[in-house]
């Protein structure tokens, strides 16, 4: 009898995590905020990859989007404005066993934290970076961001933002040792999921720019693209990000793009009035800083003491 049962009752592995296992505090974003979509995509990825909650650290800076770690039931680090990346790198340096996810806003990453952004790309540590790009400062209420489109009316530029926007994707593609750059949008959950999941699988720093709607300050900013599906271009390739055929079918505009093609990636990141989503660039053979920082992790006390003694002996008289 018992044996028979075993044939038809599927036995759950001991650590079968469900979505609820990743539920942190109740998210306090504005209704309609694009951040909710990212949060649920990440929770699904955690479940689908069975990431033990104690082995994940969500690291962020300051901003609406940087509240992200509070809404996950994993370890989290909600630190300083602009400084998520150095913290994430420091954690990863000596804890290769931890999965590090970084949530950072366009002000957080591309303005106050821009120096760290350049260098984190170059360190290329094994972490997943999500840039929540709502083109505006949300938390501090509607100031211009470096990614605000020229002319956007904000609290600091009431007659329209003066300067042309910084393009984080193009910039990242220009940083030395870049290894994974993708774009996606908050309003296409399957693509968001597929992109972040591919980013998570990548070994090295994966940089994902997520076009994120801010219902309070930039509610209509992405309307031209949302309302005209031909303006949203899906990047496809056998080495790209795979989406389900049903999802792929919905795209009116598709471009086959080999993610090893840097020139193509740069062109696709600068389309006028259009947005290319998917994997822009991927180089699996870059230098990974973790390989240097993971040195000596399991050295025991005896070996350490021996080395210290020898070093001291060099100064003996």
């Amino acid at each position: 009898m018992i044996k028979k049962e075993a044939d038809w009752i599927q036995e759950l592995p001991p650590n079968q995590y469900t979505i609820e296992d990743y539920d942190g505090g109740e998210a306090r974003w504005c209704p309609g905020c694009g951040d909710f979509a990212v949060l649920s995509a990440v929770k699904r990825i955690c479940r689908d990859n069975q990431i033990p909650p104690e082995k994940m650290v969500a690291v962020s800076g300051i901003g609406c989007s940087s509240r992200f770690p509070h809404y996950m039931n994993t370890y989290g680090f909600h630190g300083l404005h602009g400084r998520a990346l150095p913290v994430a790198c420091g954690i990863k340096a000596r804890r290769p066993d931890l999965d590090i996810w970084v949530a950072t806003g366009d002000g957080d990453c591309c303005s106050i934290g821009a120096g760290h952004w350049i260098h984190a790309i170059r360190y290329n540590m094994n972490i997943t970076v999500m840039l929540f790009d709502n083109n505006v400062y949300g938390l501090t209420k509607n100031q211009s961001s470096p990614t605000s489109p020229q002319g956007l009316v904000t609290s600091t530029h009431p007659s329209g933002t003066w300067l042309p926007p910084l393009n984080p994707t193009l910039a990242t593609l220009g940083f030395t040792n870049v290894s994974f750059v993708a774009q996606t949008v908050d309003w296409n959950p399957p693509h968001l999921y597929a992109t972040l999941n591919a980013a998570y699988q990548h070994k090295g720093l994966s940089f994902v720019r997520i076009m994120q709607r801010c219902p309070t300050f930039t509610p209509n900013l992405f309307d031209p693209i949302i309302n005209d599906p031909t303006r949203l271009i899906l990047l496809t390739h056998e080495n790209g990000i795979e989406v389900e055929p049903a999802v792929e079918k919905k795209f009116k505009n598709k471009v086959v793009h080999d993610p090893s093609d840097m020139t193509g990636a740069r062109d696709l990141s600068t389309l006028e009035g259009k947005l290319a989503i998917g994997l822009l660039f991927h180089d699996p053979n870059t230098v990974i800083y973790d390989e240097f920082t993971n040195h000596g992790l399991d050295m025991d006390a005896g070996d350490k003491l021996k080395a210290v003694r020898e070093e001291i002996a060099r100064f003996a008289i």
Partner: protein
Amino acid sequence: MSGTDGSSVATPAGKSSGGANGAVVKSEQIVEIVSDSGEGAQKAGQTFGTISAKMGNGVWTVEIIPAEIKPPARSKAGASGIRVRIASDNVTNMGDEADLVVAFNEQVLYGRIEQHAYKKGTVVLLENKWAASPMAEVQKQYTEAVKEFKRLGLDVREMPLEEKCLEFMPDPRLGKNMFVLGMLCSIYGRDLQKAADEIAVVFKKKGEKVIELNRSLLQAGFDYGRTQLSDLSVEIPPRKEIPPQVVMNGNQALALGIMASGMDVVAMYPITPATSVSHHLAGTFHRAGGILHQAEDEIAAIGFAVGASYAGKTACTITSGPGLALKTEFLSLAVMAEIPLVTIIVQRGGPSTGLPTKVEQGELLTAVFGATGDNPKIVMAAATIEECFHFVIVARKLAEEFRMPVLLLSDANLATGVQPFPRPEPQAEWLASPFDQSPWQEGVRAYDWDHKTGMSTRPIPGQVGGEYVLTGLAHTEESKVAYEPEANQFGCTMRSRKLASFQSTLRTPVINGEPEGDLLVIGWGSTLGAIDEAVANLQADGRKVSSLHLRFLSPLEPGLSEIFARFNHVMTVEINYSDPADDPLVTVENRRRAQLARLIRSRTLCDVDCWSNVHGQPLHPRDIYDEIIGRLDSTNGGEVK
């Protein structure tokens, strides 16, 4: 020491007696080698110091550093080189005026005279090639200088240093430093074999040929000294029984302390005079299981260290004043979120870029207070090179135990000073214990503050059931963002209470001298040796002066008010800025006092005076002595009103 035109030398003092082989026996000697930069003076001096330490003498060496990297040759401002103080006893500071100086040109000597480095009778061994310079201007400068030096009472001996080296090499500029080393070895009766051995160590990377050449130069210098300078012979008997010693500078001691403390990560951004700590770690730290991360800036460096520490790995960041300014936001986060972290600050002259290579104790108040909001953190200062080593170990333990940042102050004086000290024997208990990965105890919160002490244990990522989100926002014991006003009050109270708990474990500081008297001198950091020496001389003169040296600045060591009450006057001696009390616009109320004085006044409500300057130089015992005598002999002995 005082002069009207800056070109003065002091009247000599010191003990001596007759010794063997015609050598005069002295308890100590101060020797300088000054030159244009890049002439190897420091290498010769360091080697001379090491040989002397190996022979059992107490030693202190301090580099003479010009402000610019490449100052013009033959200029006063370009004076570069080294001072070596050797004694029969332990040496704790660079002392007052030198007894002997080797100068590679007369202009750099002018520079040192302006800094009151010499006294009447100081022997000057001066390169004489300038007398025959093809440039008439140089000839003239040289001749005039020699006349002037003699007028000042210096015992000038002109000598053909480079010419003597020409026998061995075509460009004697590169070799004369070892010739000089040989000369000094003969004058001070140094063991020539030890010197030859040391040359092998110094030039190891350059190969056997170079070692041989330098040994020949050493021998030539030694012979020259023996035949031409025998009247200068001095014997400095070694110390008696001493435990096994090591000899190094303060930054090397910090680097070794970091290794011995079991530190896992050091993250830094280069800045003088802190950088060389990382140089010492770069080739060796991995052998003790640690990593050195050169970050893109000081903020990233501390962020990296904070991240590593959050993840359960012991971490440290190293910087100087300008870098500390950049790190303050992260320091507040470490306070707020209770992340253990060691921050080492090797101070230099400020404000701003200030005097990058010079000594100052100007970061005390920034270390104690500089950060957002209320910032209880532990601040300690090493007073000796030996303490540079041991205090890193203490700092790491305190950071972990009290779950807070610990700032360890050193300075340019300790960083470049070289001194022997008892050889440390590394202990297993000095190392950090492995990070905990056992399941987190159910029901214990992320900040489960003990209400009496403020202490709590932290969950480390990887611990099942310990998941929490660290935040720099005001938070509850569960690390949830706090929306109640009381929560912030409570969190601040708990974090502050940790300092009080820690202070209750500290001992009352030891008084050097009688527990009561006319004046108590208080110092902190690298001034210990100079203050002690000045105070010892005052006590020998029958003055009722004692001193006290603080190692913990936050919290302050306990019992200070009671100690102060037993002295008529209390003053600090520091190397940072204070308004002179007699400045026309300065009043008792608006006077900006030296940093420790301000700190102690606010903590003890005692009328603590101060004496300080920002000349960028280590303090001379003589200057401290003179200042105190002046005060004791003035009518009120205390603050000039």
